[in-house]
C-alpha cells in the first residue's frame, strides 16, 4: 500500500469547529438546483413551472452531452424557474411535499462485481446521477463517452471545518463499497481511494496520505500517485457521492442525503447536520443566532461561494461556513506586535504564539499589490509546480509555457491556500481558473 506524505501546506486553525455527532434539523421546505453554477454546461429544461416531480426525475440536461441529466433532489412541485440573461436557466426551485422516488433496477454486491461497463454506465445515466462524476483536467462534469485512465476518490477532508468523512464512510460502509465496485467498472485503469487511515476495500487500490491541507484535495493525491499528462482524463468522485451512487445501485433509488457542517467563527452553535441536496441555506443555519453582519458561504472557507440568506447549498458542497463580515481597523496596525487573538499568519511576522483557534473575519488584511516573491505560495503548494512562473505564463496567455509548467495537473482549489497566504493578496486560484478556461478553449 502506498503511503503519501506531504510536508507543504497548512491546516488553518479557524474557530467554530463543528460537533462530531450529526444532528437532525427540520428539512428545507424548498430545494433548488442552480444550472448556471455548473462549469461548461448548456442547460436545457425538461420540466415546467407547476410540474410535479419525484426524487430522481430529470430536471434538465446538458445540450453538449444530452445523456447527462440532473436528478431532482426532492418530490414536489416545481415552484419557480428563474432565467438570467439570454434566457440562461439560473435556478430551478422545488417545493418539497413528499418522498416519492423513481425506482430503477437494484443490484446486489455480487451482481455489481460481475457487471460490465455498459450496465453500470447506463444505470448511472438512467438514475440521472452521472453529474456526480467529475473529470480532471478542468474539474468539470465528465463525458460518459470517455473512458478515464483512472478514477480517484479522496476519502480525506482536510479543508477547514469540513465533515468528518471517515465516520460517514464507516457508517455507510456497504454503500461506499458498492459505489467503489460500480465505479471500478467504468475505467480500464484502477480506482484509487485515499484515506488518512486505511480501511479494507475491494475493487480499489487503497492508499494513505498524511500531512496538512491540501492533503485531502484529490488533485494533490493524483499528483502524488500518477500525475495527469496531456491527453489523460481522470475521473473524480466525492466520497459522499460514492455513497449516493452505491445506494442507487443497492436500493434502486436516488437518496439525496448529504451530511453538512454548519460552522465557522460566525456560527453560534457549530454543528454537523443531516440535510438534503440543494437545501435552502437559511434552513441549515436555523440553530445559529446571527446578530452581527455574517457572511454565508456554501462550501469551505477557502473555496466556497458567497450565498445570500435565501440562497441554496451548492450541488457539490457539504459545508456552510459562517464568518463575521466585518473589518477592524486598528490605529497603526502595521506596526502592531500582534497577539494570538488579533493576528494569524503562516509567517513569524507577528508575535502570535500558541495553537489557539482564530476568529477570522472577511477582512482582506491588506491591499492588492504586485507579487513580492517571498515563497508564500511555494510553501503551501505540495506539488512539483512552480506557482509563480505558472501564474506569469497565464497572465501572458502563453499556452505552450502553461502546458510545459504543468497546467494539466492544476485546479484552482489546490491554489486556494496560496491566495490565503499571499502577502500581496492576489487571488491565485482565480487566475489558475482563467488559465484552465483559456486552455480548454484552445486545446
Amino acid at each position, binding site marked *: 500500500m502506498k503511503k503519501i506524505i506531504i510536508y507543504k501546506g497548512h491546516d488553518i486553525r*479557524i474557530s467554530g469547529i463543528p460537533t462530531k455527532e450529526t444532528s437532525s434539523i427540520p428539512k428545507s421546505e424548498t430545494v433548488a438546483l442552480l444550472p448556471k453554477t455548473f462549469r461548461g454546461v448548456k442547460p436545457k429544461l425538461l420540466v415546467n413551472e407547476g410540474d410535479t416531480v419525484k426524487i430522481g426525475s430529470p430536471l434538465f440536461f446538458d445540450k453538449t452531452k444530452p445523456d447527462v441529466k440532473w436528478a431532482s433532489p426532492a418530490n414536489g412541485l416545481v415552484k419557480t424557474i428563474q432565467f438570467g440573461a439570454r434566457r440562461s436557466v439560473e435556478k430551478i426551485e422545488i417545493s418539497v411535499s413528499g418522498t416519492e422516488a423513481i425506482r430503477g433496477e437494484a443490484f446486489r454486491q455480487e451482481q455489481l462485481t460481475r457487471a460490465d461497463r455498459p450496465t453500470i454506465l447506463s444505470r448511472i445515466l438512467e438514475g440521472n446521477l452521472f453529474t456526480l462524476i467529475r473529470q480532471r483536467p478542468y474539474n468539470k462534469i465528465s463525458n460518459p463517452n470517455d473512458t478515464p485512465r483512472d478514477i480517484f476518490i479522496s476519502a480525506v477532508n482536510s479543508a477547514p471545518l469540513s465533515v468528518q468523512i471517515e465516520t460517514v464512510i464507516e457508517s455507510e460502509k456497504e454503500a461506499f463499497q458498492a459505489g467503489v465496485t460500480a465505479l471500478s467498472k467504468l475505467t480500464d485503469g484502477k480506482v484509487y481511494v485515499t484515506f488518512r487511515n486505511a480501511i479494507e476495500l475491494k475493487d480499489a487500490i487503497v492508499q494513505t496520505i498524511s500531512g496538512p491541507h491540501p492533503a485531502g484535495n484529490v488533485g494533490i493525491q493524483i499528483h502524488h500517485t500518477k*500525475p495527469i*499528462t*496531456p491527453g489523460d482524463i481522470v475521473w473524480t468522485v466525492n466520497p459522499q457521492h460514492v455513497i449516493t451512487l452505491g445506494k442507487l445501485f443497492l436500493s434502486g433509488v436516488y437518496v439525496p442525503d448529504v451530511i453538512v457542517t454548519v460552522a465557522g467563527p460566525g456560527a453560534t452553535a457549530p454543528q454537523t447536520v443531516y440535510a438534503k441536496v440543494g437545501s435552502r441555506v437559511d434552513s441549515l443555519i436555523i440553530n445559529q443566532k446571527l446578530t452581527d453582519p455574517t*457572511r454565508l*458561504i456554501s462550501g469551505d*472557507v*477557502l*473555496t*466556497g461561494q458567497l450565498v445570500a440568506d435565501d440562497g441554496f447549498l451548492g450541488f457539490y458542497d457539504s459545508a456552510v461556513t459562517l464568518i463575521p463580515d466585518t*473589518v477592524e*481597523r*486598528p*490605529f*497603526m*496596525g*502595521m*506596526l502592531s506586535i500582534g497577539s494570538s487573538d488579533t*493576528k*494569524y*499568519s503562516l*509567517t*513569524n*511576522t*507577528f508575535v502570535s504564539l500558541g495553537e489557539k483557534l482564530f476568529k*477570522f*473575519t*472577511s*477582512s*482582506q*488584511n*491588506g*491591499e492588492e*499589490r*504586485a*507579487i*513580492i*516573491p*517571498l*515563497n*508564500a505560495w*511555494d510553501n503551501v503548494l505540495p506539488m*512539483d509546480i*512552480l506557482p*509563480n*512562473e505558472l501564474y506569469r505564463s497565464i497572465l501572458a496567455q502563453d499556452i505552450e509555457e502553461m502546458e*510545459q*509548467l504543468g497546467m494539466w495537473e492544476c485546479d484552482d482549489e489546490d491554489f*486556494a*491556500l496560496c*491566495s*490565503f*497566504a*499571499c*502577502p*500581496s*493578496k492576489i*487571488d491565485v*486560484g*482565480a487566475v489558475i481558473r482563467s488559465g484552465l478556461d483559456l486552455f480548454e478553449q484552445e486545446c
Partner: protein
Amino acid sequence: MKWLKNILDKIKPHFDKGGYLEKYYPVFEATDTILFSTDKRTHSGPHIRDSLDVKRVMILVVIALLPAYIFGAMNIGYQMALSLGQTNTWSENLIQGALKILPIIAVTFGAGALWEIIFSVVRKHPISEGFLVTCALIPLIMPPTIPLWQVAVATSFGIVIGKEIFGGVGMNIFNPALVARAFLFFTYPVRISGDKVWISGPDGYSGATALAIPAAEKSQDAVTLLDSVSQFDYSWLNMFMGWVPGSIGETSTLWIMVGAIFLLVTGMASWRVMVGAIIGLTGMATLTNFMAELTGSSNTMLTLPAHYHLVMGGFAFGVVFMATEPVTGTHTDKGRWVYGIFIGGLTVIIRSINPAYPEGTMLAILLMNAFAPLIDYFVIQGNIKQRMARYAK
C-alpha cells in the same frame, strides 16, 4: 485616535470619484491605510486571509535596518571625535552622528515621497509602501559627508529610473537603492568611489579605506599591511564590530547580522541567498589566495583572506539587505543559491582583480540583478525538462 479617523472619513468624499480632489486619491488612500489599515474585504476565493500584507513586509525590513542606523550614528560621532583627537561618551557620539544622519534621511524621504506621489497621481496607481524600504536603505549606503543635494538627485534617480519607469514596486529589475548609489558612484566619483575615507571631521582630513590599502600596494601580504595602518584600527575584530570609517550603515558586520537574524526569523529574506553569497565569497577568496601563492602575483588584494573579505566594505550590508530583495533577485529556490554564490564570487573578483573599484559588492549585486531572470530561466527549463520526460513516457 477616533477623532483622526473621523476627520479622514469626513474628507474621504472629496477624494472619491467625482470629488474635487479625485486626482489625489492615492495620497488619501495611502494615509488612510497606513494609519488605520485597509477596510477591504474579500469578495470570493478564500474568504479569509493571512494577516501579513505588503505594508507589514516593508515595515519589517525597515525595522531590521534600525540596528545599522543606530550603530551608524554612533560610529559617525566616534570617527569625528577620533579625527579631532577627542574622546566622547557613546551618547555624545550618538547625538553627533544623528545630527549628520537626520538631514540625509529627511532629504531621502522627502525626495522619495515626492516622486512616489507624482507617479501615483499621474499613473493612477496606489502609493506603494516599497518606497519606505528604498528610502530607508539609501542613507545607509551613503557616506556621512555626502552633500544633501547629491542625496536628493541620487534618490530621484533611484526611484524614477530604478523603479517607476518599470511600473513601480514588483516590476523593477534593479534594486532602486543600489541604482541610486551607482548613479552617484559614476557621476560624482570624488565623493563616493570608496578609496578615500569619509569622515565628518576637520577639513582636509583624509585617509585610505580598509579595502583601498591592499588595493594600492604591490607584492605585500594584505593582512600584515592592514595591521600596520596606524591612522585607523583595521584589525579583523574592529572591522567586524564596525568602528571603522565607511558608509553610514555598512561598517558593522555585527549589527547587520542582528538585522539579518530578524529578517530570517520573520521570513522576509531568503537564507539561500545569504548562505550562497558567503559560500561564493569564501570559495572565491580561497581561490585567489591560492592563485596568489601559485603564480606569485604582485596583486596584494589576492592575498586577502575570506574572513577579511566578509567584514570589509559593504559586503555584509549588501548581501543581507540588497541581494535578498525578493523582486530583483531570482524567484526560484535553486536560482537563489546560484544568485547568492555568484554575488559572493563576483564581489571578490571585482575587489581584487580591478583595483579601480575597491568596493565590489554593489556592482556584483547590480550585475546579478541583470542576470537573475537568466538564472531563473535555466531553473524553469530544468523543471520543464523533467515534466516533459515524464510526459514522453
